[in-house]
């Protein structure tokens, strides 16, 4: 076998690809991201808000994109595709074609002047055709990379862009380029394609302007979209009074061939209805659906809010046809409700389109030599949800089946762990580490400030008189040098800044240009390379917040720019160097819980070379999986369980403690110390990270005679009975949502629909003549599980809908078990006498969660599951660094989803464990112990528990900042009554000086 290579190729730069790339690059591997379009970010960049938190999509995504764009070990290859893959796991050779961009990425600064001058108008794909763009363009405003691209099909070759480009970046003669990459593993994250709704001609999409697809509607809702976030009709720009959402367009539909469920549309449909009303109050939204599949964490609570607070109307009906009303261009929707055909007019119709595999899935599969499933999504299985049919190639995100963002992110981190385990021996070998000169000691020196003012081509210089600002800067106190640059961010200016620091012995550096949010890291790096502490740099924004927003007032803009420079100089004079605290890392993990999830996480970490301690409460490994006898998809859970247990027990790096319990945890990321009770003794373990994998438990019903009548069982008990070949009932009734989706527990337990279908199919297999009735609220067989739902219906399993107003009733009269329920189609009350009544009991939080959450100082949801750092983009992280969660401790989920999360938690953990020492952010709080009165206000306010009280003298306790936990928000400093707490880089003195300098000059003038 050839030598292994410490690099990974990620195909696709959407949220999944970027997450996988970041996790690998942060764990010491080199990563290449090959993205088909000109910029990374994928579909998420087009979304307005995200469910269930209504977070703005771009706000939470952009930092990840910038992070990936700037990462020393992530190489973005955009506007490119892979052509050939040779070799084997550990050593692949990949040929990539980078298509001509016609703009030099080294030179383009992304200023956008070319696009403003370009005379061509083309359809903007990013705005889904609802807007226009020029022939030279970036995909979206905050694009990474921000290099422009020329659409040569639309370009008329007039030469304007080349003429106006001050950076000399336009290259009409650019050609396609072939790149050879050598990598150890490959991760596929090419995403999905939206179903094209014009294929369902009965809905009139494409013919009637006021019918839009859900992704077009996202753009309509977006503040950066065609109507600046106001809900308007494309036909006349008027606000529609009524909006209809039609679900399952191109999903669950045999006529389209897409019989699977697209999993995310119910929730995005509800979200779009809610946001529409937030953006344009007064619009009335109606959602036409078959089943509302709000199966994820806190989704049902969101669904309920949409109904109750936002008055979104939900109508259970498949829509056969939509027609336009001539004149008004309203749309006529026909539907069936309460058994009657009805007709209703809407101003706008949104089609919730499903997810299709990427259009080049087949070609990709051929190049890679991997198998696809019958729908052309990547083929995977329950116990290897991230593995493809070829060793060394992994998959994540929607290409592995339709899914939402958090699931994609979890899979992405999981795939990163799998890829890393192949090349763990090569960690660090291809990663770049920069050599830096020692830091100069500037303490005691008088401030010597250098100011660099950027023209940004004509972006600033076209409005603000930059030379005047420079001359003004020279008059300010302690400024010893000032100059202007065409582009301060260009590579040659970085060199110049370093030279000027040397020449003028500068000890504070200011750049007046664009936004620190994108450029501060670059300039900090530059001053650090010149031997200055990076925190001696400051920046002020005279472009985004000045020249661009005062285009018609050049004089006032110039005055404002001067004010801004003056105020930032005042702050910079007070800047102090900050140390980035480092903490050593103990390269071992503690995993709490020894079910399939804990075991998977342990194996992943061990394969990457880390010691692992697994603490299991029971006397046996396996958890919940031990109670399963067969699976919906057909795999054998028992066989897999014993295989996994064997692997864990035989692995030297894994230490298993059975019948044990964690009783105390102290320390912080990299340095935890825990006590466990094991064999009646207390044992101490030191470790760098913690993974919570404590699972969940089955609800013991108090409803429907459970416990009173032996013929009433839970799904688990039925499974046990069937597996022991004791099942012989003639008539079985199953009731869904027992203990779930109720007032006390509003959320869905996610797995019970699949369980019921699994058991119903098993009954039909072992005893086909048995009648099975499933009484449900919504059948939530999302994704490819939909196929089993259909199969069950074909085999004669009867699915009957019930709602909260008419719940089924169970009685025991004269030893006869009777179930009464309302049949909504024939509108009659029906009574049957089953031999067995099976309850699909909820999955509820592990009762130990509360105690554990207090010990680990991590939060729980209202319902009692563990609450992650961010529901969308950090699904397996806690807000506390170094602590992770996975599996059912997070929320109810299927085995494949739990396994993906287990892998994800281990990948996230590896980003810490792979480092000898962690460098923390330098902007942290510190306490002047002499001023501290020990009042503990800061301790109680800190959202990260980063402040503890320590004894200064026998009588006095003072606040102490645990730097490793502090995130630098400054809430403590603001609240401190004695001003003993200060925030590095945002000290009270610095901010006050900045404010004063802004204002006082004017008073003098």
């Amino acid at each position, binding site marked *: 076998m050839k030598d292994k290579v410490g690099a990974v190729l990620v195909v696709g730069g959407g949220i999944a690809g970027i997450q996988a790339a970041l996790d690998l690059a942060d764990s010491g591997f080199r990563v290449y991201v090959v993205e088909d379009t000109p910029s990374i970010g994928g579909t998420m960049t087009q979304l307005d808000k995200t469910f269930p938190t209504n*977070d703005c999509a771009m706000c939470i995504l952009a930092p990840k994109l910038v992070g990936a764009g700037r990462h020393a070990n992530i190489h973005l290859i955009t506007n490119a595709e892979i052509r050939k893959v040779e070799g084997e796991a550990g050593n692949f050779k990949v040929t990539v074609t980078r298509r001509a961009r016609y703009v030099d990425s080294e030179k383009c600064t992304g200023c956008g002047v070319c696009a403003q001058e370009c005379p061509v108008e083309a359809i903007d794909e990013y705005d889904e055709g609802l807007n226009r763009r020029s022939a030279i363009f970036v995909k979206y*405003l905050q694009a990474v990379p921000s290099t422009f691209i020329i659409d040569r099909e639309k370009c008329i070759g007039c030469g304007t862009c080349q003429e106006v480009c001050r950076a000399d970046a336009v290259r009409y003669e650019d050609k396609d380029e072939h790149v050879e990459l050598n990598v150890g593993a490959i991760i596929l994250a090419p995403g999905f394609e939206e179903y094209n709704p014009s294929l369902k001609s009965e809905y009139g999409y494409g013919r009637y302007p006021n019918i839009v697809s859900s992704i077009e509607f996202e753009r309509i809702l977006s503040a950066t979209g065609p109507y600046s976030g106001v809900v308007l009709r494309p036909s006349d720009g008027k606000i529609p009074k009524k909006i209809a959402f039609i679900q399952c367009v191109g999903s669950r539909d045999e006529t389209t061939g897409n019989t699977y469920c697209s999993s995310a549309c119910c929730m995005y449909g509800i979200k779009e209805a809610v946001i529409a009303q937030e953006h344009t109050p007064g619009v009335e939204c109606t959602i036409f659906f078959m089943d509302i599949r709000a199966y994820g964490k806190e989704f049902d609570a969101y669904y309920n809010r949409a109904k109750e607070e936002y008055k979104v109307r939900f109508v259970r009906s498949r829509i056969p046809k939509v027609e336009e009303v001539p004149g008004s261009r309203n749309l006529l929707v026909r539907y069936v409700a309460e058994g009657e055909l009805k007709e209703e007019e809407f101003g706008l119709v949104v089609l919730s389109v499903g997810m299709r595999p990427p259009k080049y899935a087949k070609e990709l599969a051929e190049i890679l030599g991997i198998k696809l499933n019958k729908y052309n999504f990547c083929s995977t299985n329950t116990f290897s949800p991230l593995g493809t049919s070829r060793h060394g190639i992994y998959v994540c995100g929607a290409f592995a089946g339709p899914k939402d963002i958090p699931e994609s992110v979890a899979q992405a981190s999981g795939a990163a762990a799998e890829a890393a385990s192949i090349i763990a021996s090569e960690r660090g070998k291809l990663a770049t580490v920069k050599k830096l000169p020692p830091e100069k000691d500037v303490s005691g020196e008088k401030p010597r400030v250098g100011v660099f003012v950027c023209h940004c081509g004509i972006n600033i210089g076209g409005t603000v008189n930059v030379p005047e600002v420079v001359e003004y800067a020279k008059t300010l106190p302690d400024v010893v040098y000032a100059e202007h640059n065409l582009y301060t961010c260009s590579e040659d200016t970085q060199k110049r800044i370093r030279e000027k620091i040397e020449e003028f012995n500068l000890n504070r550096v200011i750049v007046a240009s664009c936004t620190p949010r994108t450029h501060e890291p670059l300039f900090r790096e530059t001053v650090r390379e010149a031997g200055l502490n990076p925190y001696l740099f400051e920046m002020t*924004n005279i472009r*985004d917040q000045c020249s661009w*927003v005062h285009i018609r007032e050049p004089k006032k803009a110039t005055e404002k720019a001067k004010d801004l420079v003056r105020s930032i100089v005042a702050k910079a004079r007070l800047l102090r160097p900050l140390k980035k605290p480092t903490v050593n890392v103990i390269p071992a993990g503690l995993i709490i819980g020894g079910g399939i999830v804990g075991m998977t996480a342990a194996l992943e970490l061990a394969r990457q070379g880390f010691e692992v301690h697994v603490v299991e409460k029971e006397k046996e490994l396996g958890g919940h999986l031990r109670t399963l006898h067969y699976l919906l998809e057909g795999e054998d859970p028992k066989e897999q369980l014993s295989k996994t247990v064997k692997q864990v027990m035989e692995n030297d790096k894994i230490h298993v403690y059975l019948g044990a319990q964690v009783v105390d945890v102290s320390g912080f990321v990299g340095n935890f110390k825990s006590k466990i009770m094991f064999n009646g003794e207390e044992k101490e373990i030191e470790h760098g990270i913690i993974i919570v994998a404590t699972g969940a438990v089955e609800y013991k019903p108090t409803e429907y005679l459970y416990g009173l009548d032996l013929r009433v069982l839970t799904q688990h008990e039925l499974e046990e009975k069937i597996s022991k070949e004791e099942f012989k009932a003639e008539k079985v009734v199953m009731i869904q949502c027992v203990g779930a989706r109720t007032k006390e527990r509003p959320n869905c337990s996610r797995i019970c629909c699949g369980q019921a279908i699994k058991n119903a199919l098993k009954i039909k297999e072992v005893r086909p003549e048995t009648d099975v009735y499933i009484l449900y609220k919504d059948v939530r067989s999302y994704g490819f599980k939909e196929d089993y739902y259909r199969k069950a219906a074909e085999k004669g399993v009867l699915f009957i809908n019930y709602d909260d107003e008419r719940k089924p009733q169970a009685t025991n009269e004269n030893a006869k078990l009777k179930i009464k329920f309302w049949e909504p189609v024939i509108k009659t009350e029906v009574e049957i006498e089953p031999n067995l009544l099976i309850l699909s009991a909820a999955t509820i939080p592990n009762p130990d969660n509360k105690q554990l959450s207090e010990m680990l100082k991590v939060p729980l949801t209202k319902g009692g599951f563990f609450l992650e750092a961010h529901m969308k983009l950090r699904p397996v992280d806690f807000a506390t660094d170094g602590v992770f969660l996975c599996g059912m401790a997070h929320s109810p989920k299927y085995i494949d989803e739990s396994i993906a999360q287990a892998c994800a938690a281990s990948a996230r953990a590896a980003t810490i464990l792979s480092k000898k020492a962690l460098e923390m952010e330098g902007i942290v709080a510190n306490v002047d112990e002499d001023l501290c009165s020990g009042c503990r206000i800061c301790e109680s306010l800190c959202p990260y528990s980063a402040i503890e009280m320590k004894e200064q003298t026998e009588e006095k306790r003072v606040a102490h900042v645990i730097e490793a936990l502090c995130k630098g928000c400054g809430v403590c400093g*603001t609240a401190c009554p004695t001003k003993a707490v200060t925030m590095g880089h945002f000290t009270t003195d610095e901010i006050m000086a900045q404010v004063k300098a802004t*204002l006082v000059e004017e*008073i003098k*003038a």
Partner: protein
Amino acid sequence: MSEKEEFEPKIIGFLCNWCAYAGADLAGVSRMQYPPNIRIVRVMCSGRVDPSFILEALKDGADGVLVAGCHLPSDCHYISGNFKALRRIKLLKKVLEQFGIEPERVRLEWISASEGDKFATVVKDMVDQIKKIGPNPLKGGIEA
């Protein structure tokens, strides 16, 4: 500034790095035009804004102070800094009123990174409003 010229209020804006500052950037990227009366001071979190910063700004002659952070309840990068800002500004406004300073001079807004338009509108609105209220009474005091 001579008294006869139209009164141009000077506004200090404390914007949190993650949402409001990003929203102000987006207003720029989208070339939304608003009056040049605001000077922005970037802080990491709206929860860092000490009421004394606002009082000092008013004392130094600011005609208005804008504090802008991430939307309630859950957008805050630091979990709950926005709630802390909310409580502090509410209290501060009561104090200002007792000092005879119009509480409208201090404004708290939630602006997300995608709400460039909202940022521009807030600034426009605030400039109009403060023009109506007139110059900060403390400014004259200092000049005298």
